C-alpha cells in the first residue's frame, strides 16, 4: 500500500518535470538550435552558484541567460557573438574555459610550474641520495671491521 502510494507520487512528480521541460522544448523545436544552446550553456558559468554551468543550474539567472541565448540563436547570431555578449557583461569569469592572457597566466601556467618545480626537487633529491649512498657504501676499513665484530660478539653474549 505504502509502496503503491510512493510509486504514484513519483509518477506525478515526474509528469510535472516532463510538463515543464516540454514547454522549454517547444520554445526551441529546432533540434540544431537546441544542440547549440546545450553546447553554449556548458561553456558558461552560472554566476550565482559559481561552480555550475548554466546548463546544469536551475538558478534564476541561469534560466534567464538560457532564454537570452535561445533568443540570440533565433536571431542568427554566431556562437562567438553569443559568448562575447556574455563576456562583455559578466567578464571572463563567466567562461568555464577562461582565455589565456596576462591575468590568467597563473591559472593556466600554475599547475605546469608546480609540476616542473616538483620534478626539479625530486631530481635534486635523488642525485644527492645517490651521492650519499656512493660515498657511504664502501667496504669497511680494517679498523671498522674489528669494531663491528666486537659489537656483534657483545650482543651475542647477552
Amino acid at each position, binding site marked *: 500500500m505504502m509502496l503503491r502510494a510512493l510509486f504514484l507520487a513519483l509518477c506525478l512528480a515526474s509528469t510535472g518535470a516532463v510538463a515543464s521541460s516540454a514547454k522549454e522544448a517547444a520554445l526551441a523545436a529546432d533540434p540544431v538550435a537546441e544542440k547549440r544552446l546545450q553546447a553554449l550553456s556548458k561553456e558558461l558559468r552560472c554566476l*550565482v552558484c559559481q561552480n555550475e554551468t548554466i546548463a546544469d543550474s536551475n538558478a*534564476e539567472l541561469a534560466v534567464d541567460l538560457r532564454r537570452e541565448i535561445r533568443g540570440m540563436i533565433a536571431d542568427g547570431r554566431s556562437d562567438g557573438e553569443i559568448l562575447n555578449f556574455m563576456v562583455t*557583461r*559578466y*567578464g*571572463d569569469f563567466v567562461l568555464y574555459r577562461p582565455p589565456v592572457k596576462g591575468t590568467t597566466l597563473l591559472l593556466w601556467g600554475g599547475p605546469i610550474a608546480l609540476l616542473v618545480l616538483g620534478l626539479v626537487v625530486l631530481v635534486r633529491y635523488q642525485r644527492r641520495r645517490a651521492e650519499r649512498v656512493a660515498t657511504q657504501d664502501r667496504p669497511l676499513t680494517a679498523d671498522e671491521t674489528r669494531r663491528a665484530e666486537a659489537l656483534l660478539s657483545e650482543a651475542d653474549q647477552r
Partner: protein
Amino acid sequence: MNRYFWILGAFAALVVLLAVGLGLNPRDIPSPLVGKPVPTFKLAVLSTPDKTFGPEELRGKPWLLNVWASWCVSCRQEHPILVQFSKKVDVPLIGLNYKEVRGDGGFDMSKLPAEEERKMALQRANQWLAQHGDPYKLTAMDIDGRVGIDFGVYGVPETYVIDKEGIIRMKHTGPITPDILAKKIMPLLAELGK
C-alpha cells in the same frame, strides 16, 4: 636541520596562500563594465509608469544606480544607508527595480499575464518604498530582468557609480556598508564631481 627549514617554509607558504584565499570574497567578481559606457535602456518609472527613464537623461553629472527588489533581503540591510545618503548628498540616486515579481520565486509565471505582473510589480515596489523610505530620485522598473542582464547583474543588491560622461566607474555587488560608502563611494564621487 636544513631539511626541516624547507618543510617549515613550504608549510608557512601554504598557510599564507590558504589564508589569503579564505579572505577573498568569491562574489567579488571584477565587472567588465567598469570603464565602459553605461548600457542604454528605456524603462517605465515607478512613480509615473506612463513615462520612461533612460540613462542619457543624467548626462553631465555623476550619479548612482542601485539595483534592488522588495524580495531581496540584503537590500533591506543597505536601505537605511541609502536613505541617509540621499538626505545628505546631492548626487542623483536612481533605483533599478530588478524582477520585482518573477524574481520572488513565489509565483507561477506561466499563469501570470504580463499586464498583471506589471501591475503587481508597481504595487509591490511602491509599497516597499512607502514602508522603508524612498531614497531614489526615481526607480526604473526592470520587470523581466533584461536590463539587468545588460548590466551584468547577478546578485542583488548591486550599485554602480556613473560619471558625467556616462562611463561606469565602479560596481559594488552586495549590500553597501557604511565602510564601503565612506571609503570607496564618497571619495570617488568627490573626485567625479570636480
